[in-house]
């Protein structure tokens, strides 16, 4: 009883709110949890049956010299063993299954939650951190679900059962047995407090040593180049030493606690022997009662020894769940409007009206941007790095939310459009092509249901078919992580095929600057032309040929639109574009010419 309360208080001390929320994950598996609990109670009961059977065997059969009766008891004992075996197995299996299902759900929830977050979220949360939530923290909770919580309940049931059994057999002997209980309570309380503190420090220092290894193995080149080996080694050993010392310090608590529990158990045993024995001699209790008490007392102290372990699990789980919930509680800053307008096909009219945008605070990267793109028009954005070209793409795809102004797509406010249907109609080609693990076809369809014929068609149109068909297994060919087995130019062609396969109404293109060989360059140029054909297109242009082919050029400078017009008009204006052009395209023109 005592123990149960302590556990509960501990839970509260840590966070009852977290616990409550954690337990919610078990709701869908109520049936399993309840069955598992019932099984647990049965196990606790069965555990008590053993000593009781021994008691009956001694009192009624061995003392009475009744061999047949003893065999009967033995058969009962065996039946109890088999039942215990089955129930134990079923209970463990069921609880593990529940834990896994809860974890499964939690992982799905985290993953889905991440998919809902806008890009800004990923700027603030490094991949490594999110990965830790997904793997380590969920893992820790598994321990809690599958072993920690349940064994605590199991132990509590057993302890209650023992107390009931002892009191119902002989309450006076039971009272005497439990005289040493306050001692146990005190020892446990002290131990718990000490272990809690040292455990926290141990975790902290382990993390520090691991982080140090991680950081300095990654930076080993720098350490070696600057011959800092000795200094870093000393620093490592400082952390290493701190870890060793806290480990050694915390073992003292265990080394004191375990023998103390044993000693308290021995005191109970001594009391049973003395008081119980005296009563056997006096003939007020039977011999079997004494033996049963000895066994029950032994059982009573076993779970208490495992306490520290469960404590650590609980403590770690609280910390992990806190982190996971914090992540899950991050509301996406951009929410898909619940009754958003779904457009099956865009005409492709895009209008920015006095748009202001900052990634953070008041550092506006787009200042009062207004422009209108007519359906089918091709518009190029030109400007130096940091002029705000990429931010326009980010807003159009609703990767980020702008602060002021309005963006209209086919006359609808972008914030009232269904985000998914909007993105379906926009095609994006980025400078850095991301290659997913999987084959070529997967990388074009991205897991969308697509006919291989469609994939082939899109590839052919952008000249990607040639290199793909040269690969072994062509469209089924596996691409290495990051596309290490294809060239940069080939990656670009692949990304064109990807964009085209989705048949977007509007194409947004961030032209790659990386140089590729002339042959591939020609294929890319040709593909670009075909992709832009008949589509509203927004292009962040780096190539002269592309600039020449567009209907309109928007020149951006420091987050503002400074000039608008076609190439000839802008050249005549002799403004920023003219200067950019002088600087950047003259040589290329000379070369092309």
């Amino acid at each position, binding site marked *: 009883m005592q123990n149960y309360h302590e556990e509960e208080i501990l839970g509260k001390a840590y966070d009852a709110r977290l616990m409550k929320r954690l337990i919610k994950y078990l709701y869908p598996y109520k049936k399993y949890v309840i069955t598992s609990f019932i099984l647990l109670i049965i196990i606790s009961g069965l555990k008590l049956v*053993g000593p009781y059977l021994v008691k009956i065997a001694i009192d009624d*059969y061995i003392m009475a010299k*009744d*061999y047949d009766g003893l065999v009967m008891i*033995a058969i009962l*004992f065996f039946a109890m*063993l088999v039942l*215990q*075996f089955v129930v*134990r*197995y079923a209970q*463990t299996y069921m609880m*593990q299954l529940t834990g896994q299902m809860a974890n*499964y759900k939690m*992982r*799905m929830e985290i*993953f889905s939650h991440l*998919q809902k977050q806008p890009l800004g979220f*990923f700027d603030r949360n*490094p*991949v490594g951190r999110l990965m830790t939530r997904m*793997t380590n923290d969920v893992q820790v909770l598994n321990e809690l679900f599958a072993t920690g919580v349940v064994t605590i309940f199991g132990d509590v049931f057993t302890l209650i059962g023992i107390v009931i059994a002892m009191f119902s057999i002989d309450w006076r002997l039971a009272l005497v047995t439990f005289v040493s209980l306050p001692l146990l309570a005190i020892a446990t309380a002290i131990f718990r407090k000490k272990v809690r503190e040292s455990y926290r420090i141990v975790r902290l220092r382990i993390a520090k040593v691991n982080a140090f*290894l991680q*950081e300095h*193995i990654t*930076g080993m*080149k*720098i*350490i*070696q*180049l600057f011959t800092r*080996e000795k200094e870093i*080694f000393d620093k490592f050993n400082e952390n*290493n030493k701190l*870890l*060793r010392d806290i480990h*050694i310090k915390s*073992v003292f608590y265990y080394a004191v606690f375990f*023998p103390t529990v*044993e000693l308290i*158990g*021995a005191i109970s045993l*001594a*009391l049973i022997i*003395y008081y119980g*024995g005296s009563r*056997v001699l006096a003939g007020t209790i039977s*011999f079997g009662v*004494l*033996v049963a008490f000895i066994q029950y007392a032994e059982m009573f102290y076993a779970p208490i020894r495992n306490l520290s372990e469960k404590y650590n699990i609980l403590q770690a789980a609280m910390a992990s769940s806190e982190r996971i919930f914090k992540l899950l509680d991050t509301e996406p800053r951009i929410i898909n409007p619940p009754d958003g307008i779904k457009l099956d096909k865009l005409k492709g009219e895009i209008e920015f009206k006095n748009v202001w945008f900052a990634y953070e605070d008041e550092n506006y990267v787009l200042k009062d941007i207004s422009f209108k793109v007519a359906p089918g028009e091709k518009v190029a954005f030109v400007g130096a790095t940091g002029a705000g070209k990429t931010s326009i793409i980010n807003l159009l*795809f609703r990767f980020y939310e702008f602060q002021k102004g309005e963006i209209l797509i086919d006359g609808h406010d972008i914030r009232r459009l269904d*985000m*998914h249907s909007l993105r379906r109609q926009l095609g994006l080609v980025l400078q850095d092509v*991301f290659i*997913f693990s999987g084959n070529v076809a997967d990388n074009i369809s*991205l*897991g969308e249901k697509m006919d291989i014929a469609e994939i082939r068609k899109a590839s052919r149109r952008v000249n990607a078919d040639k290199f793909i068909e040269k690969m072994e297994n062509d469209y089924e060919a596996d691409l290495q992580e990051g596309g290490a087995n294809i060239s940069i130019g080939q990656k670009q062609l692949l990304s064109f095929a990807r964009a085209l396969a989705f048949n977007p109404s509007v194409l947004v293109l961030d032209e790659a*600057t990386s140089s590729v060989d002339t042959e591939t360059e020609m294929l890319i140029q040709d593909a670009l032309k075909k992709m832009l054909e008949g589509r509203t297109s927004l292009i962040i242009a*780096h190539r002269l040929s592309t600039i020449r082919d567009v209907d309109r050029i928007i020149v951006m400078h420091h987050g503002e639109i400074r000039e608008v017009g076609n190439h000839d008009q802008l050249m005549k204006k002799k403004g920023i574009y003219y200067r950019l052009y002088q600087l950047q395209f003259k*040589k290329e023109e000379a070369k092309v010419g």
Partner: protein
Amino acid sequence: MNKNNGLKDIFYNYLKRYKWHWIIGFLTLACATGLTVLMPLVLRNAVNKLEFGGSPSQLLTDAFYIVGISLSAGIFRFFALVIVTIASRKIEYDLHSDFFEHIEKLGRKFFDKSNVGDLVSRGSNDVEAVQQMHCPGFYSLLYSMFIIPLAVVLMFRVDPTLTLYSMIPMPFLALAVYLLGKYVYGRYHKIQVQLGKLSASVQENLWAIRVVKAFDQGENQIRRFEAINNDYVRKYMNMVRLWALFYPVIYMIAGLMMLVVLLIGGARVINDEITLGTFVAFVAYLVMLVWPMAGLGWVLGMIQRGFASYARLKEIFDIEPEISSLTETQAKTRFKGDIEFKNVSFAYYNSPVLEDISFKVKPGQKVAVVGATGSGKSTLVSLIPRLYEVTGGSIFIDGKDINSLDMETLRSNIGTVPQDVYLFSRTVGENIAFGCESKPSPAEIKTAAKVADLLKDIEKFPEQFNTLVGEKGVTLSGGQKQRTSIARAIIKKPPILIFDDAFSSVDTDTERHILNGLHEIIENCTVFVISHRVSTFQNADLILVLDEGKLVEQGNHETLLAQGGVYANIYKRQQLTEELEKI
């Protein structure tokens, strides 16, 4: 066989460092165990008194025995656990320390092909597994090894027949636990592999989040993840099906032993062959034996894993440092900065990277290395601080072969700014000071920052030079990181400076500004610079033009341009790219 011997060597090597800990731990544990096994005998005595008539005062003596035995056994156990734990933690400490020290000695070639995550895992998880093998592993093993024979011997003396019968299920217990442990471990391994896949898929999703969103692939990604997640649960439950047998089996076999004692022991009491006290003592011994027996199987698994981890650590310890001249420090000299490559070749795992490179650089000259990606520029400059060892020819600094130089002297004369910027999660000031052997003064740090054109940025930071870099502090921009890396290289004012594509994140003006400022603080320093910028390489005293690992042209800008060869081509192309970059 040989491999196993090596494993034994490493094991004994660490074990024997703390041999006194083990000996004393062993002895105290033996004392504790010896006392513990007396307990059932006291019990037997007491019960016999009850059966054959005794007085409560005699029982009181037994009660005191029980408490006394427990107390003294507890004291011994306390010392045993503390001493063995100390030994195991010291071994852990040594392994950590030796592991890191060894890693520090390994060359670039090793790091090129190893994965940081894997190394960290060896340094943490494997070291931990070894520690766990020593304690609680060996502690429990020793305990089991004492208590089992002692208890069995005592049981034998009390009643040989009953002992033989009751021991029948015992070997099965150890075997079952061992076998279960083994098979569970196999399935557990599969879970780990699947967990790896699961992590990889999340990581990929996060890296590609922009593409995922642009193509509205969230739902598809969730479906894909769901499949992997499902697979994980399936594999996990596969393991659980076996693992869930663990405790039921232990309880079952322990129960069977109890059953034997109940049936046969009971019959013997009925036939007056043994006393009731003996019967009770037997029950007590069985309770005492169950966990050490079960523990034996568990410990064997732990020891197996411990040795597997030792093997993984040994793999690292067995890698000889590629460059082995970390000899006694010679008196540190400052180089003049005269460098000569004489027919230098370098092959990386048998594929040639540089072939027959020869050139001479005078102190104070600025050398630009140009060439296409993969032409060997980075490799060439990394041979100077001996990040890699030449495979043919020689490099001379001030007329001395660099292989004959003490590594510390060599590297402390060279300041390198590598292509991939790496800063430590310390303060900006500490990151800059990192380049100095002796602790530099604040003024020196400031000067270095100023020359690297970083000072104005730092002054805007919340705590100036004391601002933490990285996740816990400010996030530096690419350019700021690069300039910090530059400041770190120049703070010690080395006579030789290497900039390996070190200006990619700063603009042309800053690059020129930094390079021009160098001579103000370092007199007559030799500078190697790999840069794509025309403004940088056209002013160099010597331009080395690499093409597929060969030094195809060398000279100054005018001569090379006039040749109209590879350099002239590169020059034109670079000019073009550079201007394009400026958009």
